[in-house]
């Protein structure tokens, strides 16, 4: 949920209007479908669940590899699993409206876009994925429940975020290339989605143990009481996310030369463009530094032209980055561990 609220200024009134109409129509459908399954007088009470999501977002989870940063629940997929996609969407919509009116997160005009990206898409797509992975046969175990919840969260969050570049491109106010913006949004939200998936599963596992009747699809679950999943399953899911991420990074690296390099040095799309920097001559310091970098790099220029090699390069790059981040984090942590733990912040 963090900071991906669409702003008014990135849209034009026409695009914002179309998105708002689309969101209003889909909310109308969700409302009708909810009333069919729920006592109509109870529908307003779903606002209380909206308050729950706000409260749940206060429960932070310190991320393992990056001390100092913490993730929290977004809530869309959890609501869909507990209430079903229709009611879940309604609750998410009420949250987004309150976020807009009270916390000024996302503007009035962009409300339609935000309801689509963070309400409709995560709830409906996430729920569809959850159901698809859960399957139709009885006796679903903890591992499959984990896979369903995790996949639903990642796909729901990523697809919702992937809408943002398209909406922005349709409005045309900002001229960041669609493909680059899309890759960035998907990359960042793969990580956010993975955290969301882990937390959502932690909640689902608790509910499965205590009150399985609150979960959609609980009739398929095995009666076993074990809800713990083994490390191989968790590691496998995270590795899958890392692989997609690595693939994306290598794709971006092959599609675009280094962003800054590109700005100053070459511009194939613009024939009138004059490069700001002279091409380096071999004797200059930069050229020698570059040559050294080429020789020293394990995978020079992300592996040349070969696509398979590029993917491997992306993967290795991701893993190396993660390991380095982890080591730095460990070092920093050892330092701060000697300090007294900070008192809980009361807001």
């Amino acid at each position, binding site marked *: 949920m963090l900071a991906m*609220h669409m702003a008014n200024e990135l849209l034009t009134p026409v695009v914002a209007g179309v998105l708002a109409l689309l969101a209003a129509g889909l909310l109308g459908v969700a409302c009708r479908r909810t009333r069919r399954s729920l006592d109509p007088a*109870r*529908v307003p009470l779903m606002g209380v669940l909206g308050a729950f999501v706000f409260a749940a977002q206060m429960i932070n989870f310190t991320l393992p590899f990056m001390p100092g940063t913490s993730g929290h629940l977004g809530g869309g997929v959890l609501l869909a699993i507990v209430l079903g996609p229709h009611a879940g969407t309604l609750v998410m919509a009420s949250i987004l409206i309150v976020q807009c009116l009270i916390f000024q997160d996302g503007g009035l005009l962009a409300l339609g876009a935000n309801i689509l990206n963070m309400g409709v898409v995560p709830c409906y797509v996430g729920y569809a994925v959850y159901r698809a992975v859960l399957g139709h046969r009885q006796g679903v175990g903890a591992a499959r429940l984990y896979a369903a919840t995790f996949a639903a969260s990642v796909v729901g969050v990523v697809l919702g975020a992937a809408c943002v570049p398209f909406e922005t491109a349709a409005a045309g106010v900002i001229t960041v290339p669609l493909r680059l913006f899309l890759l960035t949004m998907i990359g960042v939200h793969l990580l956010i989605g993975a955290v969301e998936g882990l937390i959502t599963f*932690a909640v689902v596992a*608790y509910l499965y143990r205590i009150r399985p009747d609150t979960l959609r699809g609980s009739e398929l679950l095995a009666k076993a009481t074990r809800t713990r999943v083994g490390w191989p399953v968790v590691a496998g899911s995270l590795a899958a996310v890392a692989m997609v991420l690595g693939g994306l990074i290598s794709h971006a690296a092959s599609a675009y030369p280094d962003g800054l390099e590109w700005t100053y040095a070459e511009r194939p799309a613009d024939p009138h463009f004059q490069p700001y920097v002279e091409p380096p001559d071999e004797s200059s310091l930069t050229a020698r530094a570059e040559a050294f970098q080429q020789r020293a790099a394990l995978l020079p220029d992300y592996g040349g032209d070969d696509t398979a090699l590029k993917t491997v390069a992306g993967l290795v790059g991701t893993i190396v980055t993660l390991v380095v981040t982890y080591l730095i984090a460990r070092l920093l942590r050892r330092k701060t561990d000697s300090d007294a733990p900070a008192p809980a912040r009361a807001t």
Partner: protein
Amino acid sequence: MHHDYLDRYANQDSPVHDLDARAKVVAVLLYTVVLVSVPKYQLAPLAPFAVLPLAMLVVGRIPLNFVLKRVLIVSPFVVCLAAFNPIWDAQLRPFAGTWVRGGWLVAASVLIKFTLGMGALIALTSTTRFSDLLAGLQRLGVPRVLVMQLGFLYRYLFVLIDQAMRMRRARDARLGGYASVTLRLRAVGGIVGVLLLRTLEQAERIHQAMQARGYDGTVRTLRRGCFGWGEVLFLLAVGVYVTAARLSVLVTS
């Protein structure tokens, strides 16, 4: 967290606070649409658009510090996008006698519009009690079910956030930063799960209590906003103002 944190300035008395919520909602919506429709490469015509939010904030005695802080908090995403824009939009455009990359103009325009639009929205929400705002929205045709849902959300927000903060403090006191990832994740799952079950049960109790008091699906309130001459004048003035501001765009271009 207290009700006071959000509605801090909404209970003051001022001519802006006295206006009916409907008039303010319509005015701010109109203002935002016209503001966003200003062409993206034009900066000078944005100047007159500062008048409405500033006037509402100053007359409503909302501290500008508070407003700027709020704008900063919600700005990161927009600032990021605006900052990258000059890289890709490199066509030179005339600005104040010189030539500037178009991307810089768009970035400045987006940030100015963002600040002004947020200023207007904050002026609306901090001069109007949330319950009045909801009543106004309902009278403007927003479905009643949605309005009531928002009302419940607002009413229980503080209760549940307080509950969550207590549970979080209890966890921090017991786990600190020393527990393993698995344990911390399970703690988060347990806390959020308990919170969810409590909320579901609380909603059930609220429903029973409301039924015991004769709730039949409609909420009846005593407060009625009144849409008088003051509101009509205010809306007319805002209408003339945004039209004039928008026309100045055409004149300068």
